[in-house]
């Protein structure tokens, strides 16, 4: 799809790109520029989660709105700040893009189209749904498969990539994440289950992601098993947890 065609379909819908960033001074300017190139209609808000390398200032200099957290909240608390901003300022569409450059803004149209067409409430860019090859160690691949199977079974919708945070949301789903968003490791798994619990329609589209130049995962196998057990418990409990809000019925 051509960007211009997409822009026409996005029409006058207020849209925002939420970019969580922690010490991403090297990449943040480029990410902002690339989002602009794809669609200048996006308001870009960078959530600076306690950076000490001037990420926030660089984001502002690049023309983005910048929300500066007074101390590090972790990825969940940071993106939720963005969703709260989006909700308070009346945005219809929100996309979430990492500040470290692993998500390619040129693929925004892929995740926006199903949302604009009303096919889904949340569209997730998946690395494993067919586009390109994603290099990962065997145990990470296996972990991904297991999580995908578990989450798919719970939300009763087929998913392949439960750790992707490259996604687009409509007003309904962004208002859920503004009110309730999980914190901690593998928060995307919990967020997906949460969305399923509210009967939001999820859709995956294939995307490719860039290799992260820095910040390779330092998780050892025993440690990742321990974290997985924690997330599994959190997911299990969340199925029985009292809802934080009631979503308005769709018009």
């Amino acid at each position: 799809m051509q960007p211009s065609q997409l822009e026409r379909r996005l029409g006058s819908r207020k849209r925002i790109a939420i970019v969580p960033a922690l010490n991403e001074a090297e990449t943040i300017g480029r990410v902002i520029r690339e989002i602009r190139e794809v669609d200048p209609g996006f308001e870009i808000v960078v959530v600076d989660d306690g950076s000490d390398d001037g990420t926030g200032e660089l984001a502002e200099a690049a023309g983005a709105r910048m929300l500066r957290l007074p101390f590090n909240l972790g990825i969940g608390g940071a993106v939720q700040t963005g969703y709260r901003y989006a909700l308070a300022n009346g945005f219809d569409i929100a996309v979430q893009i990492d500040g470290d450059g692993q998500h390619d803004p040129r693929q925004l149209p892929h995740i926006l189209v199903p949302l604009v067409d009303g096919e889904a409430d949340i569209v997730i860019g998946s690395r494993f749904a067919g586009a390109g090859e994603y290099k990962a160690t065997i145990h990470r691949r296996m972990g991904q498969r297991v999580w995908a199977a578990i989450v798919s079974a719970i939300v009763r919708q087929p998913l392949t990539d439960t750790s992707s945070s490259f996604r687009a949301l409509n007003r309904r789903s962004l208002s859920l994440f503004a009110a309730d968003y999980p914190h901690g490791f593998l928060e995307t798994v919990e967020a997906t289950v949460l969305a399923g619990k509210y009967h939001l329609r999820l859709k995956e589209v294939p995307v490719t992601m860039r290799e992260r130049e820095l910040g390779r995962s330092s998780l050892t196998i025993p440690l990742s098993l321990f974290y997985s057990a924690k997330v599994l418990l959190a997911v299990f409990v969340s199925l029985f947890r009292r809802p934080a809000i009631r979503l308005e019925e769709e018009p």
Partner: protein
Amino acid sequence: MIPFRVAVFASIAAAIFLLVIFELIRSRRLQERYALLWLITGGVILILALWRDALRLVSEQIGIAYPPSALFIVGFLFILVVLLHYSTVLSELAEKNVRLAQDIALVEERLRLHERREEREAAEGR
């Protein structure tokens, strides 16, 4: 029956404990809300230490041969309850802390934009 010396020691310890809690509340270093469970803990231990027949009865009922152990278990259970209560308080505080940090970020951004606009308007000579 619980040995007399154990009873004396436990009573004195519980009494001192209660006094410390009372002093903490008095000097406003401990809110009544969080002191209540501690007061009950100290109070129950004091009563069981003083009232030795009651402790014997309790131990017999739950099948504990050595009554001082019953005292120990009662104290242990109360401490568990207190700790669990603290975990819920801690969770609530952590949740509020996140909300507040987010609120600060949202308000700070508006303030920053506002101040910039004022500076600009001042520079334009209004």
